[in-house]
Every structure is written in structure tokens, then in C-alpha cells.
């Protein structure tokens, strides 16, 4: 460990230089700084969300309490949920991923550093937007899942819900961009020898999480957009009194909402899968099972959303199938718990604060998982959903699980990020305060649920037992608050006078521990040779090296163009967005399709312009071929034709819109109007975006800045353009040719 002792002197210099230039943080595109920004921002929001939680618990401490009125209480729990999910959970996990993933795979930075900074800065923007609503007199108050029609203007006339919608759209864009960035980074930027089968499990989990993000967030976005149109333009997607469908919101929300649970949980699983092996001095047991079960969880999570809707009366067939689908998730999850436990077994366990949190995670996550199994059995869900039992359940998963894993990861990686070790004694105090406080607060809520206390009630009558349990619950919240304060004190104290950590204080296994603490700008002076899943272990324990004991698949060739890969990932996310918008069209136009839709649309003319749009795909392909062949004139010619065709298509759309508006068909006049303008309008916007991008390339090409050597940029935008055309084929068949009605 000579390298480590040499590095000991470094943290001070680095820490000082970084702190001294505040502007440096604002303009930074370094993944480590952005990661820390994410984490710090999330901590600020954690304090806000935590304060909201304490206020909620104070209101509930005695029956018939009047401390906080119903309207403020509803704002508080809505903001608590929204803040914790979108401004704490997602940013802090993204922050850790940003910091750690490039280090763990031996890269010098993420694939798109500036996109990374963009994604981060959307988080404070969204957060401030959301909290600004407090100043307008009404924060959002319809709950974090914002069920329509309560969230419609008729029942939430103040602007809180609008702020909520726009803030979430902003945050969603940030999440998708960082997810795309991580996917491309993990696929392309791995060090030599670091095959996808050798990446640390945290990286693997982040990979699946990122895929879930690009699939799930667009579902939320489409729901948000529809509700925003309802609220601002007067359509009636979710308003049953005008023909809309309030269940549609629930479907769309939970198509996002259930994968979201795993978006918050999988990175935590990843952290645990790093911490437990290191402090057990063993490799993770059954690496491939932990990894593959993640894939299974990811896929299953996309198809079980309706288990949040067992009580809405979908019918026995739905309930039965969704119950089975949800129960199946227990198998891969159970497998994970087994592997973590088996990793502990036979190890030599070191009970550091980090490890204590990991073990508490394991126990509490098992409780949350088991109550989850109960909820998957639909008849039990019918009784217990929307009671405090479900509040207890998801706090056991997201707090007892994810937040505890974050503490485990926080204590574990803090020395890498700052070069100093957090104080273990204060750490243990934090640990016990959190464990006691957490279980006090949430364990009793299981009983409150069985006693019939509905969730989201601002107060309750003096039913036998309710007061005592609520009082215990509130007391526990203060323990947790104290725990967080001790933790913050620990952090501040450590930053000033903490013990220097050295490169690898835990004798850990993965690549991030092979560099200095904190790592310098380029991350690694030289990336160690990667021949197994634990390169640093191999380095420090040559006679027990992993590659001697267990063979892992070698590195293989990878795709080359980051731009194209990112474009493909973006397209996947856009496809999901359009899928749900088009579904909304199908839902609202299948029964009434004959009368309104058929007569007003001029199919023949649009068919002609459809052909023009399709032709533009061919001309763009020719342009790309010319560019690759270094035929600049041909490239510009074909690109010009593409731009012209796209513009013609948009002009036709404009003419068509004008005609419809002239006949009095608007976005608010009927559900056909609403869905038609929404679907074709969003497609038109995408065509416009594509045209702008192509026009920029055209200008660049004219100036000679875009030549055959950078043809993958055109290729990436080409993917997008072809995708927009494919979407139009679908839209045209469904809206104009009415193949589904």
C-alpha cells in the first residue's frame, strides 16, 4: 500500500483548490463534481422533505389535532412524496452513479460530459419550480400520484398542480438525459478487459436502472402532458363528466410508477452488493444470479403496474393475472436476498458503520418485501391498500431499504470522494438513531393499517389504540431527524478534521479504489489490468487472485459510435412516449370513431404528404451515404431536399390544422379533437425538432465543419429522423386509416 501513503497528502490540496473556485462548480463538466453536486442538492431536498415529514407526524401525534389545517397538510404530504421520490431518491442515486460508474469501469469521464451537466442543472431548476409553488399560495395538494379528476382544474383550481406537472416534466428530461449518458458510458467507456460480465454489480444495476428510466419516465411525461393540456387548454382526457377516462391517468401513472420503485431500489441493491462483499472479505456470492435477477426484476416491473389498482374494480381476470405477475417478482428478489446472505456466510465480517447499515438494510428490506408479497395477493390488497399498512410497506422498501443503502454507500464511498474517513463513533450513533427511529415510526404503522386508519388523512378520531401508536410513530420521526443531524455534523466535522483515508481504506475490490482519494481530474494515472471482477483485489492479493480461481468472460468488441448509441436510446424513450399518446387516441376513438374522425380528415391529401415524409428518409439516407463518401456537394444537395420535404410536410399539417379550426374542431371541442391535435401536434413538434437539427448540420456542412469523418453525427440524427417517420406511419394508419377501429 505504498501508493496509498503517498496519496495521503493529496486530499487537502485538492479539497482547497476545488472549494476556492466556486465558479468552477457551476461550469464543471467533470463527472465527479457533477456527481457531488447531485448528492449535495439531494441532501438539501432531503432536509426539506424530512422537515415536511416531521410536520406531518406532528399533526398526527394526537387525535383531532388542529396544529396544521387540512389544506396545508395535504400540500405537505404531496410535497413530501414528490420531493423524496424526484428530488432526493433519483438525484442522489444518479449522483452516486455519476461519481462512481466511470471510476468503477476505468473511464476518465462519462460519454457526454456536457449533457451530464445539463441533466444535473435541471434538478435544481425543477426543484425550485416545484417549491416556488409555496410562494404562489398553494403548493400541489393532490398527492404524489396526483389522481385525476382530483387534479383537474375543477377540483384543484389553484396553480399548485401546474407547478407540479411542469417541475416533473423538467426533472424527467434531466433523468432521461443522465440515463442515456450512463447507458452509453457503460457500453462504450469501459477500460480494456472490463467486459460487461465483469463490471461491479453497482454498475450493472445502474445499467438496468437507466434502461428502466428511459422506458418509464416517458410514460409519466405523456400522462403529465395530457393532464397539462386538460388543465390549460380545456380538453377532457381524464374528466369522466365530459367523456374522458379517469382510470387512464392511473394506468399511465403506474406504468411509470411501478418501474419507478425499482429505479429507486435497484441502485440501492447495487450499493449493498458492493458493501457486503468488501466487509465480508469475500466476492459476492452468485454474481451472475444477482445480475440476471435484476434483468428479470426490470422486465417484470414493466408489466405489473395494475397491482396498484386492484381496488379500482378492473375485474377478476385482471386482478388474477396482475397478482400472479407481481408475486413472480418475489422469486428474483428472494434470490438476491439469498446471495447477500450467502456472501455474509463464511466471511470475516467487519462491522463498520457502512456494514451495519447494509445489514439493517437487509433485515428491513426483507420486511418490506414480505409485506409486498402480501399486497401482491389481491384480496389482501383490497383490505389493506390505502391504509397505513401500505405506508409502512413502502417506507420499509424505500426508507428502510433505499435510504439505509444510501447511508451504507455514503459511509463506504465518502473517503473516496473526500479523502477523509467519516467518524465511526458518530457513525454508530447515527446508525442506532436511524434504526430505532425508523422502526418506531413505521413498524407501528402496520398495526394502524390493520386498525383501519386510511392513509393521507390529516387527522383522525379518538379510536382505541390509534393515539398511542401515532404518538410512538411521531416520536420515532424525531429519532430519525436527530440521526440525520448527527450524520451532517459528522460530515462537516470530517471535512475539517477527519482522518485521512488513503487510496483504499477498506481494502476494497473494485477499480475506483485503485486511484487516489479523491481521484484527480483524469481519474486514473494508469488503469490497472482487468482480468476479473475484482481487479484491485487481484492487485493486492496476487496469490488469491480471482482470475486464478474463477474464470469470467473476456472483453469483447463493442459498438463504436457514442452518438448513434445515444440516439438509439433516446428513440426507445421517445417510442414509449408516443406509444402512450397513440394509446390515448385509440382509447378515446375506438367507440366513437365512425362519426367524427372519418368525415373531417382528408385522407388522400395527407397520404400524399406522408409519401413525401417517407421520401425524406430516403433522401437523408442518400445524404448520409454521400457524406461518408466525402462527397460534400452530394451531401448538401440531398440534405437540402430532405429539409424541403420535411418542411412541406409541416406546411400541410398547418393547412390541415387551419381547416379543422375553421370548422370549429379544436383541442377542447371533443375528445377526437383533443387526441388528434395532441398526437399529431407532438409528432409535428418532433418533425420540427428534427428539421432544426438537420438545418444546423446543413449550415455546418456548408461551412465545411461537418465532413465525412464525423458522419456519425448525421447518422445519429438520421436515426431520429427515420424514427419520426416510423411514428408517422403508425399515426397515419391509426388516425387516418383507422386500422384499429
Amino acid at each position, binding site marked *: 500500500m505504498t501508493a496509498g501513503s503517498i496519496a495521503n497528502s493529496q486530499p487537502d490540496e485538492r479539497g482547497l483548490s476545488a472549494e476556492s473556485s466556486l465558479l468552477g462548480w457551476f461550469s464543471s463538466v467533470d463527472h465527479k463534481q457533477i456527481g457531488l453536486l447531485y448528492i449535495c442538492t439531494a441532501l438539501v431536498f432531503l432536509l426539506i422533505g424530512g422537515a415536511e415529514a416531521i410536520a406531518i407526524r406532528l399533526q398526527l401525534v394526537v387525535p383531532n389535532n388542529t396544529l396544521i389545517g387540512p389544506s396545508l397538510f395535504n400540500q405537505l404530504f404531496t410535497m413530501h412524496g414528490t420531493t423524496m421520490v424526484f428530488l432526493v431518491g433519483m438525484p442522489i442515486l444518479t449522483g452516486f452513479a455519476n461519481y462512481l460508474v466511470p471510476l468503477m469501469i476505468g473511464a476518465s469521464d462519462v460519454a457526454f460530459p456536457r449533457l451530464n451537466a445539463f441533466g444535473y442543472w435541471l434538478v435544481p431548476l425543477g426543484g425550485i419550480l416545484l417549491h416556488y409553488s409555496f410562494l404562489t399560495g398553494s403548493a400541489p395538494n393532490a398527492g404524489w400520484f396526483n389522481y385525476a379528476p382530483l387534479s383537474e382544474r375543477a377540483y384543484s383550481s389553484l396553480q399548485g398542480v401546474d407547478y407540479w406537472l411542469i417541475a416533473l416534466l423538467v426533472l424527467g428530461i434531466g433523468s432521461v438525459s443522465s440515463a442515456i449518458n450512463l447507458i452509453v458510458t457503460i457500453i462504450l467507456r469501459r477500460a480494456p478487459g472490463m467486459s460487461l460480465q465483469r463490471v461491479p454489480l453497482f454498475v450493472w444495476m445502474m445499467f438496468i436502472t437507466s434502461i428502466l428510466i428511459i422506458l418509464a419516465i416517458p410514460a409519466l411525461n405523456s400522462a403529465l402532458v395530457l393532464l397539462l393540456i386538460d388543465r390549460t387548454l380545456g380538453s377532457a382526457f381524464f374528466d369522466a363528466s365530459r367523456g374522458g377516462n379517469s382510470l387512464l391517468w392511473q394506468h399511465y401513472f403506474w406504468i411509470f410508477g411501478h418501474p419507478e420503485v425499482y429505479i429507486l431500489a435497484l441502485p440501492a441493491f447495487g450499493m449493498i452488493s458492493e458493501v457486503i462483499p468488501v466487509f465480508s472479505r469475500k466476492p459476492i456470492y452468485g454474481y451472475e444470479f444477482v445480475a440476471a435477477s435484476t434483468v428479470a426484476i426490470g422486465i417484470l416491473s414493466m408489466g405489473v403496474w395494475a397491482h396498484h389498482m386492484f381496488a379500482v374494480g378492473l375485474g377478476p381476470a385482471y386482478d388474477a393475472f396482475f397478482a400472479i405477475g407481481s408475486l413472480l417478482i418475489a422469486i428474483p428478489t428472494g434470490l438476491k436476498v439469498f446471495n447477500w446472505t450467502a456472501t455474509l456466510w463464511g466471511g470475516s465480517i467487519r462491522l463498520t458503520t457502512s456494514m451495519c447499515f447494509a445489514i439493517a438494510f437487509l433485515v428491513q428490506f426483507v420486511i418490506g418485501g414480505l409485506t409486498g408479497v402480501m399486497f401482491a395477493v389481491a384480496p389482501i390488497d383490497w*383490505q389493506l391498500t390505502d391504509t397505513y399498512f401500505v405506508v409502512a410497506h413502502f417506507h420499509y422498501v424505500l426508507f428502510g431499504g433505499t435510504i439505509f443503502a444510501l447511508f451504507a454507500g455514503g459511509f463506504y464511498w465518502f473517503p473516496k470522494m473526500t479523502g477523509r474517513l467519516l467518524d465511526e463513533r458518530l457513525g454508530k450513533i447515527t446508525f442506532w438513531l436511524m434504526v430505532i427511529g425508523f422502526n418506531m415510526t413505521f413498524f407501528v404503522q402496520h398495526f394502524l393499517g390493520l386498525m383501519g386508519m386510511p392513509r393521507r388523512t390529516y387527522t383522525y378520531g379518538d379510536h382505541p389504540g390509534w393515539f398511542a401508536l401515532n404518538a410512538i410513530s411521531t416520536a420515532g420521526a424525531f429519532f430519525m431527524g436527530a440521526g440525520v443531524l448527527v450524520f451532517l455534523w459528522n460530515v462537516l466535522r470530517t471535512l475539517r478534521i477527519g482522518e485521512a483515508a488513503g487510496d483504499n481504506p477498506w481494502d476494497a475490490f473494485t477499480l475506483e479504489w485503485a486511484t487516489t482519494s479523491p481521484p484527480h481530474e483524469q481519474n486514473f494515472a494508469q488503469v490497472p489490468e482487468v482480468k476479473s471482477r475484482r481487479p484491485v483485489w487481484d492487485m493486492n492479493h496476487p496469490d488469491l487472485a480471482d482470475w486464478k480461481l474463477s474464470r469470467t468472460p473476456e472483453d469483447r468488441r463493442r459498438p463504436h459510435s457514442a452518438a448513434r448509441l445515444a440516439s438509439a436510446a433516446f428513440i426507445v424513450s421517445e417510442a414509449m412516449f408516443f406509444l402512450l399518446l397513440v394509446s390515448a387516441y385509440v382509447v378515446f376513438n375506438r367507440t366513437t370513431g365512425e362519426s367524427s374522425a372519418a368525415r373531417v380528415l382528408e385522407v388522400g391529401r395527407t397520404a400524399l404528404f406522408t409519401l413525401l415524409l417517407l421520401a425524406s428518409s430516403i433522401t437523408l439516407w442518400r445524404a448520409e451515404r454521400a457524406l461518408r463518401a466525402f462527397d460534400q456537394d452530394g451531401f448538401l444537395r440531398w440534405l437540402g431536399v430532405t429539409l424541403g420535404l420535411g418542411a412541406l410536410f409541416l406546411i400541410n399539417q398547418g393547412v390541415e390544422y387551419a381547416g379543422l379550426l375553421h370548422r370549429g374542431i379544436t383541442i377542447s371541442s371533443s375528445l377526437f379533437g383533443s387526441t388528434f391535435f395532441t398526437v399529431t401536434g407532438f409528432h409535428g413538434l418532433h418533425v420540427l425538432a428534427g428539421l432544426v437539427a438537420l438545418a444546423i448540420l446543413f449550415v455546418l456542412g456548408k461551412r465545411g465543419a461537418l465532413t465525412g469523418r464525423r458522419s456519425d453525427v448525421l447518422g445519429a440524427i438520421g436515426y431520429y429522423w427515420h424514427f419520426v417517420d416510423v411514428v408517422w406511419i403508425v399515426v397515419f394508419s391509426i388516425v387516418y386509416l383507422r386500422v384499429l377501429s
Partner: protein
Amino acid sequence: MPIPLNCLLRVNAIMAASTVPVLDPASPNATTIRNLFVSVFLICCAIFVVVVALIVISVVRFRGGSTPVQDFGRRRSEVVWAITPVMIVFGLSAVSTKLILSILAMPTSQVSEAGDADLVVIGHQWWWEVRYPAAGAVTANEIHLPVGRKLRVRVEAADVIHSFWVPQLGPKMDMIPGHPNFVWLEADRAGTYEGSCAEFCGDQHAWMRFTVVAEPEPQYRAWLAHQAQPGSAPADALAEAGRRFYFAQTCANCHAVKGTSAVANAAPDLTHVASRTELAAGVIPNTPQNLARWLRNPQAIKPGCQMPNFTLDDEHLTQLVAYLEGLR
């Protein structure tokens, strides 16, 4: 299952009946679900004990020490471990499917027919409209049931989504605008059961509660027949003054009284308001004093509720209370 169930029932008995309504069911469906819950709970407990035991043993036994054997895992052990969860999952799937079908079992031909529900409950922000279509009775926040007879309940919503839940009588069912749902309501013993709205529905979601009274068939019939009657005429001059005030002011714009010109149903029907046990969906017991308090300023008792503060003076208040107390 009987043995563990008995244990749990004894625990429940110690905790006094119906403190834990979900575990103290009073209808066949709720009982079925309770039994299911108890068995799943016991399975979960067993799993929890095994996992925690393994964790504790490993932490105690393998704490500290030198570098252990580097074990990368064996495929066989994973498969062996997976057998238990797979079996549990398949077992639970079968049981849950069976119960879903039996609890929801309802002649489907009837579901689409709106008229033939025995009872229609409509959720409003923040009260319950209760209609007995066959008898023509309308009431609010209080449901009466004959013991041992299943009523088919259609649940609807007038504004936002609510959820109809009587923990002791069976599963909850959401009330969704434009999507009427059906649920069985049955009590196998006489008694009073509390219900509440379980889906967040705005400011006063907390005080959207109701009472279910299960009584023997003859009493139920008598109650129903009485509820179908028009409201009784004012008995004295004070009440008569209250009646006049009721119709002179805007009361009748929202509240109906059967047999008068007041027919609106934006707010609870007052035809037999004095016969009900609670006011304002469970906030306060229905006594003349509380009624006066309520009329003086509803917003002080149920902030955000749809009934504004009419700032009534004492004289009119007394008259109005006298009239409403006569509506038995």
C-alpha cells in the same frame, strides 16, 4: 390453518374486539380475507425468521477473522434456494386466483344493469349519498343492512375518486366517476361498523366516514319503510319558523327534504336527518347542540367543506335546529 388462527384470535380477543377491524371480520368475505391474511402472514413470518437467523448467525459466527475462503457461489445452491420461493409463489397464485374469483363472483349479466342494485352509494366531496332504489329511500353517511342477507351495492362517485371501505365487512372498492363498481355488502352479526373513504379525495378526506348498522330483518324493514316516508311537518311554531327560514334562505339549493320543494342533492338529504347518529360524515355525534354548532360555522368544524359559513344569528339558528330536529 385452524390452530394458528386460534392463536391469533386469542391475541385479538386480548386486544378487545374490533380494535383491529381487519382482523375481526363480520362478513363471510372479510373472514375469508382475514384467514388468507393470517396464513400469508405466518408464511412471511417463517421466511423472515429464517433469513434473519441466517444473517444473525453469520454476523455472530463469522465476525472478524482472517481472509476467508473466496467462494464465488454455486449454481446448484441457487436453484435449491429458489425452490421455496417458487413453491410459495405458485401456491399463493393459486389461492389468490381462487379467492379473487369467489369474492368478486357476481352474476356478470347483472353488472351492466344499473337498476338492480339493492343499494347505491355515491361518494361526494366529503360525504356519502345512500340510496335504496327499490324502497325509494335516500339518506346520507349511514347504511342499514339486514343481518345475514347479501346486498348488492353499486358504488359511484359524483366528483372525484373515493373508495368505499368497511374494514369489518369486506374488501374496499373504489368509487370512480364514469366507472360504476359493484361490491357485496353483508354482515353475519348485528352491530355497528365504521366505514371510511380510503382514496385521497381532497381537503376533508379524513372526515369522510360513515356508519353501517346491521340489524335483524324486521328492524331493517321498519327502518327502510320509515326512511322512505316524506319528512314530517313542523310540530310547533318554532319549528315552523325554522321551516320557513329553510326555504327563504339557500338551504334548499343543496339539501333535499322529501315531500317539500327541496329536491337538490348537492349535499346530504335531510328528510330524516335527526334519525342519523353522526353529523358531517363522522366529525361529530348528531345532537341538537352539535347541530347548532355545525350550523353556526361549519368551516370551524370541518375546514374546507362545501357548506359555507352563513353567519346565522341565534334566533334563526334556534328555529332551524328545531325544524331539523323534527325531521326524524
